[in-house]
């Protein structure tokens, strides 16, 4: 995890735990990541692996029961001094200055992510007026231009309409418009197309890539769909039970998968074209209870290559120019989490 | 195969609902109040020697203390006796009205919720009409036609009390009707009535019981108000409401407050208990709260 200039966000040993009645759920349990500026990082894993909590921790949008136990998130912004987001007051002035302005976020379910009683235009303009002192008319003009850029038909009319008059696909475009209106440096997309049909999903992913090419912002794309990551991401981080099992470029992870979980995940997903000739190999058992995770590697109980050492601390190993694997079997230079 | 051998126990929903209730102190307090007051009223003859209705002109308007722990009213009748005997009637009216209303509401609600069509449209309009009419006015209309009696009062409560349960059961049927387990029953060829009453209805019992407690509380208050203005239970049989009838004059409010304070507090305490218990029940039965 080298410290060079093109890193926009570096997360070190992040631990976000939840206290629910007497149990402690270690949702994010020591995550370290570097997000390259202008690129797209795919954060992939099954539900409950902590990918969404990691993203919410970046923007400090966590419920009251959450506790950030450890770690730091350095934001190397172009517009301001590097700052550790975890040191800021969650709803303090400085953090709010970043949220929606330098780092913005869009969510999974477009149907319920827009306020039903406000017009579309007003909801987009609200972000501009919050972060920049400009006139409402000027802000509305920018909102209209952004809606057009997201190819929403007859934008002049639709900007005055209400969310219930929009389809799922159209609402997600409005969300993207809202996220990009203050031209942020980082857009976090939490399962943006999971609730959409596959052809609409293709439109949205295509749109996001096109806008990234034009505006140059960085994307963290959170999904459980390996296909989307292979299609859109530049770097990939595979998460399981609150830890990153494997991190590397798209080619590293898909052509040279080195962690047993990544390999098992790729073999358990049907791929279009082989039409059922070779049988899927499901991962046996089921995800363990997050409140009493086993010591060492939490994938060990379901892993075909499990060995006794998997019970102790697991090294985070660089198996080849930045391709990191958290597994005893991996050969290479060990990397400290904190570094 | 499943990982560890889980302890195979015939666990039941009722057990985990009960365990959640026990952990809710307010619900337990509520239950205690209800049980104590009902016991006191039921065992009234043992608690006080006095007759609640026989006037005793030698002991008019005595303040609490001595022979009369709660004092006596203008006709020398012992207030404690009247509160205890009166409690029986008030609780009986409140409970029977609520139970009657619940049964009616469940039956109509289930049929309308499951079969819809014109039956549903008719009862929705009827329910709307009944809820537009302030309940007291409906009672006054019926009181002017029929004469006052405890029996008529219960009938009136049932005639107006079914609406809340009806709306709730009908709503639950509308949503449950689309659930897959109901569709599965139809695919197995089970009959409509057995689906409605043996599969869907049991899922509504939780909120129905909660509504029962709320209705009981509501009717006790309603009976007290009606009896207080002299249109509920005729003053011959004492109830918490008509005991307080004496409190209409200012002089009795000020000079001998004990006459109306005891029954008033009895109503408030009992209804408070019912509400605490009802709230605890709602949280315990709410599937969302693990």
């Amino acid at each position, binding site marked *: 995890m080298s410290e060079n200039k093109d890193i926009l966000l570096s997360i070190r040993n992040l631990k976000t735990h939840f206290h629910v009645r007497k149990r402690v759920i270690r949702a994010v349990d020591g995550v370290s990541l570097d997000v390259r500026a202008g690129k797209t990082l795919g954060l992939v894993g099954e539900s409950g692996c902590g990918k969404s909590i990691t993203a919410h921790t970046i923007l400090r949008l966590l419920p009251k029961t959450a506790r950030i136990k450890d770690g730091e998130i350095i934001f190397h912004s172009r517009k301001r001094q590097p700052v550790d987001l975890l040191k800021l007051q969650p709803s303090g002035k400085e953090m709010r200055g970043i949220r929606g302005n330098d780092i913005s976020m869009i969510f999974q379910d477009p149907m319920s992510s827009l306020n039903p009683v406000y017009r579309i235009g007003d909801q987009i303009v609200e972000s501009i007026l919050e972060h920049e002192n400009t006139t409402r008319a000027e802000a509305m003009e920018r909102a209209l231009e952004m809606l057009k850029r997201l190819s929403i038909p007859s934008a002049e009319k639709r900007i005055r309409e209400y969310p219930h008059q929009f389809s799922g696909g159209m609402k997600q475009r409005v969300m993207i418009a809202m996220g990009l209106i203050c031209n942020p440096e980082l857009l976090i997309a939490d399962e943006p197309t999971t609730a959409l049909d596959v052809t609409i999903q293709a439109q949205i992913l295509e749109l996001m890539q096109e806008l990234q090419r034009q505006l140059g912002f960085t994307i963290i794309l959170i999904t459980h769909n390996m296909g989307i990551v292979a299609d859109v991401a530049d770097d990939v981080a595979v998460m399981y039970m609150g830890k990153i099992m494997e991190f590397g470029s798209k080619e590293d992870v898909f052509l040279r998968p080195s962690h047993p979980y990544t390999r098992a995940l790729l073999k358990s997903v049907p791929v279009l074209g082989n039409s059922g000739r070779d049988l899927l190999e499901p991962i046996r058992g*089921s995800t363990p209870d997050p409140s009493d995770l086993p010591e060492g590697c939490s994938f060990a109980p379901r892993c075909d290559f499990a060995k006794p050492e998997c019970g102790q601390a697991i090294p985070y190993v660089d198996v080849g120019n930045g391709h990191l694997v958290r597994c005893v079997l991996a050969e290479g230079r060990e990397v400290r989490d904190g570094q | 195969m499943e990982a560890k051998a889980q302890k195979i126990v015939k666990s039941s929903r009722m057990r985990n609902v009960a365990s959640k209730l026990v952990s809710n102190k307010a619900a337990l307090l509520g239950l205690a109040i209800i049980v104590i007051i009902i016991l006191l009223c039921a065992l009234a003859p043992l608690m006080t020697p006095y007759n609640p209705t026989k006037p005793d002109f030698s002991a008019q308007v005595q303040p609490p203390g001595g022979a009369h722990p709660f004092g006596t009213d203008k006709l020398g009748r012992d207030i404690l006796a009247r509160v205890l005997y009166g409690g029986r009637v008030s609780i009986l009216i409140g409970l029977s009205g609520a139970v009657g209303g619940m049964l009616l509401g469940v039956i109509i609600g289930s049929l309308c919720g499951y079969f819809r069509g014109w039956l549903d449209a008719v009862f929705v309009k009827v329910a709307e009409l009944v809820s537009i009419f302030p309940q007291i006015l409906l009672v006054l209309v019926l009181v002017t036609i029929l004469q006052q009696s405890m029996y008529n009062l219960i009938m009136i409560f049932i005639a107006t009390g079914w609406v809340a349960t009806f709306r709730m059961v009908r709503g639950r049927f509308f949503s449950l009707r689309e659930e897959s387990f109901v569709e599965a029953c139809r695919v197995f060829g089970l009959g409509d009535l057995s689906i409605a009453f043996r599969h869907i209805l049991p899922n509504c019992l939780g909120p129905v019981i909660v509504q029962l407690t709320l209705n009981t509380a509501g009717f006790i208050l309603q009976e007290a108000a009606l009896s207080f203005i002299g249109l509920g239970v005729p003053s011959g049989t004492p109830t918490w409401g008509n005991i307080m009838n004496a409190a209409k004059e200012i002089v009795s409010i000020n000079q001998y407050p004990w006459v109306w304070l005891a029954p008033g507090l009895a109503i408030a305490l009992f209804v408070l208990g019912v509400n605490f218990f009802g709230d605890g029940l709602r949280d315990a039965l709410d599937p969302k709260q693990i």
Partner: protein
Amino acid sequence: MGNEILLELKNIRKYFPVEEGMFRRTVGTVKAVDDVSLFVRRGETLGLVGESGCGKTTLGKIIVRLHKPTQGQLNYRLDDGGFKDLLSLDKQESFHAHRRIQMVFQDPYSSLNPVKTILSAFDEPMRVHGMASAKERKQRTADLLEAVNLRSEYMYRYPHEFSGGQLQRISIARALCIKPDLVVCDEPVSALDVSIQAQVLNLMKELQRRMNLTYVFIAHDLSVVEYMSNRIAVMYLGKIVELAGSGDLYSRYRHPYTRALLSAVPIPEIGAKKSRVVLEGDVPSPINPPEGCRFHTRCSFSQARCAQEEPPLRPYAEHEDHWVACHFAETLHQADDWVIQQP
């Protein structure tokens, strides 16, 4: 896989009235399923794929008679070999026909009655369909739970004590308790986690082999449908636009919508050069679908004829099992940008 036809749908239509206003006046009709005909052979898996609103779930529910179709026949081969329209049976026959066709639902958490034990969920259907002795029913429940890799003691538990994957396996076992020949599976794995999906899909394949079951497999995820199905029907706005063997559909697709669907599915592999076909705008409203071919408003190959004349679903060239509903199916695939996937 025998080629004996088990079920034949003939010109099935299902229109839902759209009501508005105080007096629930009907102001339009949603043509959810519009003149669909197809057959299912015994032992095969017929895939039904399409995006939301295409009518695949409605068609599935018509097969199990949860919905009564506005028009059309549901011909089923009964034990004596003869075909009967399930929609015109008398009360008794109609009840017994429920044994033949069963359904597995999408949401595992709502397909079992939360206030009843697993045993009673199995027991009632068996009892109603003539399995007299309670002991025998309990034994069959135990066997079925073991058949789906679950401990038979779980029959005494309540649904809220199981995970999504376990519940879905229980629902599959329950659907088999009265020995159906045809099971309609409506998005059986979409609500499950990726690793659990593979377990359930393989279980369904194994049960099909062991009990000679026939599946109608409904899903929006083309990769899952292709993995499970022998033949796949692609639906759009209430109609079947293409029907072919799963291998054929992938490599020799002939309908522009199938092509767009295939190109939109993200592949978890690198290096597969794939030209992206991105459709414009949203799916039109099913209340008044476009005239002629319903896809012509979004089809990049559409010509004048497409807007006037609705293309019938007809066999494509000489392939016996390949049907397509497009006037220009024979010529379109010659275009150079037609192929989207280098194998």
